[in-house]
C-alpha cells in the first residue's frame, strides 16, 4: 500500500520561494524531485492554487509535506454531478 501512487494537490506558500529560484514552477519541480526523482507534475496551477498536482506514494506525500514552503498535500477527491 505504501508503494501505491495516488494523485495529490500540493499547496505551496509562494512567498517562501527560496531566492535561488527565479520561477515558482522550478521551485515546485525541485520540491517534487526531492521526494521522487520520477514524479511528474500533472498540473501546475496559477490562479486558483499556488501549487500543483502530482502522483506520489503515501510516503512521498508525507515526506513532501515536511518540506519548507509546503502548506499541505491533499489527496485527490472525486466530485459527483448533481
Amino acid at each position, binding site marked *: 500500500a505504501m508503494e501505491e501512487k495516488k494523485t495529490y494537490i500540493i499547496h505551496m506558500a509562494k512567498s517562501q520561494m527560496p531566492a535561488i529560484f527565479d520561477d515558482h514552477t522550478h521551485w515546485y519541480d525541485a520540491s517534487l524531485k526531492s521526494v521522487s526523482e520520477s514524479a511528474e507534475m500533472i498540473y501546475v*496551477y496559477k490562479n*486558483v*492554487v499556488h501549487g500543483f498536482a502530482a502522483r506520489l506514494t503515501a510516503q512521498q506525500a508525507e515526506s513532501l509535506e515536511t518540506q519548507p514552503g509546503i502548506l499541505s498535500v491533499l489527496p485527490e477527491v*472525486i*466530485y*459527483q*454531478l448533481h
Partner: protein
Amino acid sequence: TTRTPLFLGLDRSVNIFPESDAMSDVIVGVLDTGVWPERKSFDDTGFGPVPDSWKGECESSTNFSSAMCNRKLVGARYFSRGYETTLGPIDESKESKSPRDDDGHGTHTASTAAGSVVEGASLFGYASGTARGMAYRARVAMYKVCWLGGCFNSDILAGMDKAIDDKVDVLSLSLGGSTPDYYKDSIAIGAFAAMEKGILVSCSAGNAGPNQFSLANQAPWITTVGAGTIDRDFPAYVSLGNGKNFSGVSLYAGDSSFNKMLPLVYAGNASNVTSGNLCMMGTLIPEKVKGKIVLCDRGISARVQKGFVVKAAGGAGMVLTNTAANGEELVADAHLLPAAAVGQKAGDAIKKYLFSDPNPTAEILFGGTKVDIQPSPVVAAFSSRGPNSITPEILKPDIIAPGVNILAGWTGTVGPTGMAEDDRRVEFNIISGTSMSCPHVSGLAALIKGVHPEWSPAAIRSALMTTAYTVYENGGALVDVATGKPSTPFDHGAGHVDPVSAVNPGLVYDINADDYLNFLCALKYSPSQINMIARRNFTCDSRKKYSVTDLNYPSFAVSFVAGSDGSNTIKYSRTLTNVGPAGTYKVTVSSPNSSVKIIVEPETLSFTQINEKKSYTVSFTAPSKSSVTDVFGRIEWSDGKHVVSSPVAISWS
C-alpha cells in the same frame, strides 16, 4: 429550457433585460461533462463579435475541432490529466477525449444557463415550446472536467484556473462532494480565486435532501442553489381493476395501444432476492412478470434502470412508487417502457389492492403535459438542506430555483435515459436535480451582470436573495414536498428566485475578499489554511475580535447553545449599499411565535447617493431555557418601493 422563462417572469420583462450588447458581453463558464456543439441551443445567429477581452477557445481534439466554436459557444476545453493519471488513458471507444459531451448533463446545464432561442423544442412532444436559456443573449464556454469515472478535483482546479485566465464572468458548477472544511474543498478554493476576480460562482446545493445538514458547496463566497418545481407536470394515471384511479407522472411516448387492463404484480413477489421490490438488475423472474405491469419501489438503483430491468424481464409496464424518503415528490423519467411514477400514498394504496385482490389488474393512462400546476414552486424533496454543516452561522442554501423536470439540450451520444440500451436520440431531455437549478441561477446572474456590469459577485447574489419570495400569490407559504408543510429557510434559503425584482433590489449586502479573509480569521483558520484558500500570507490581527456574525451576508443564521443558563444575546452587524434612487428605508422584523427577542438598530436608514453605505446591528436574545426547536423570521428594509428581505433562522445546538 421551456416554461421556466415564463414561470420566472422573464417573458414579461424584455425591457428590464434589454437585448443589448451589454447582455451579450457576459460569458458564462460551465464546468461539466462537456457540450454537444451541434445543438441549436448553441446557434449564434444574430450575435455580434465576441468581446475583445475574451481569451477562451475551442480546443481541437478527437471529433471536436476549433471550428466548433462560434459567437455563442465561445470556448470549449477539456481537462482529463487527473482522471487519466488515476484511472489510466481514456478509452476513446467509450468516451471522447475532447470537450464533446457523451453524457448529456453538460449540454443540459449549459443550454439552461445561456442557450439560444430554439422554436419547437420538446422531448417526444412533452414540455414543448420555445426553449431558451436564462441569459439567451450571453455567451457560453464549456470546461469539461467530468468523465464517466467522475469529476476529479485536480481536473476541476485546472478547469477553474483556465476559466479565470479566459475571463469568464460567471462560473456554473453543478457538481460537488461532501467536504469537511472550506480549505479542503477544491471547489471552495477555486471559487475564492474566481470571486476575487469578480466572477460569480454558482453551485448546486446537492441532492441529498430532505435530510438536514446535507448540503454541498457551502462556502459563503459561493452562491448555493437548491431546487424547486415549476408549474408544469406530466400526469399519468394508474387505473386499478377495482375502479380506483391514482395520479402519477410519466414521460412515456410509446405506442398508445398499451392502454388496456393488464395483470399487476408486485416486484417483491416476482423475485428471487429479498430486495426484489427494488427491481434491480437480474432480480426479476421473467415467468412471473411477462406481459404484466410490475410495481417497483424506488431506491438504490437509478429509476430509469428499474424500467429497463422490467422491460428486459418481459414486463409490459411499470409503476414506480416513492418511499418515505421522497414522499409525494414526482420526478418524471423517459422510461423505455410504459411507466408511471407515483407518490408514497398512492403506492401504498396500490399495494393494498395488489395484496388483497386475487387477480389484481391495472392500466396506465398518459396525460401529456399540463401547465399552471399549483402550488408551485414547492421545494423538491431531494434538494439538500441546511443548516450549514461547516459554519452554522452562515445560512445555506442561499436560494432555490427550478430544478424538477427541466427540459434542455442533450447529447447525441446516449438516449434520454442515459442507458446504453436506450438507442433513442433526442435534441432535448427532461431531467431533475440541483444540477438543473444551479444553471438557472448562473444564467440569471449573467442577466443581472449584463444590466449591472459594475456589481460584485456578492452584490449580484444579494440582489437575487433579498428579492426572492417565500409566499405564493395567495399569501400561502412555500411548501416543502418532503413534509407537505411550509418550507423553512433551511430548505429554501432566502426563497425562490425572482429575477425581475432582483435587477432592481434597492439595497445590496456587498462583500469583498478582505471581508471573507476576516471571516476565515473568525473561523480561527491558521495562516497556512488561509494561504491555501487565499494564496497569500495573511495573518489575523490577534488584537482584533473577529466574528462570523460580522460577515455581511444577506441572510441570518443564529445558533444558540442549548441549555446555557441565563439569557444570551448574539449580535450581528450588517452594511447596506444603496444601488437605487435616494430613499429612506424602515425596518420590520417578523419572528412569529418566537421567544427570541430581535432588536435592530437603527430602525431607519436614509440614503441620498448611489453606492452610499449605511450599517445596522441586530441583537438576538434568547431567554434562558428557551425552546430548542428552530425558529424562523424575517428582517426587511423597505422604502415603500423596494423590499430588501432577509430570512432569519434561529436554532439551538
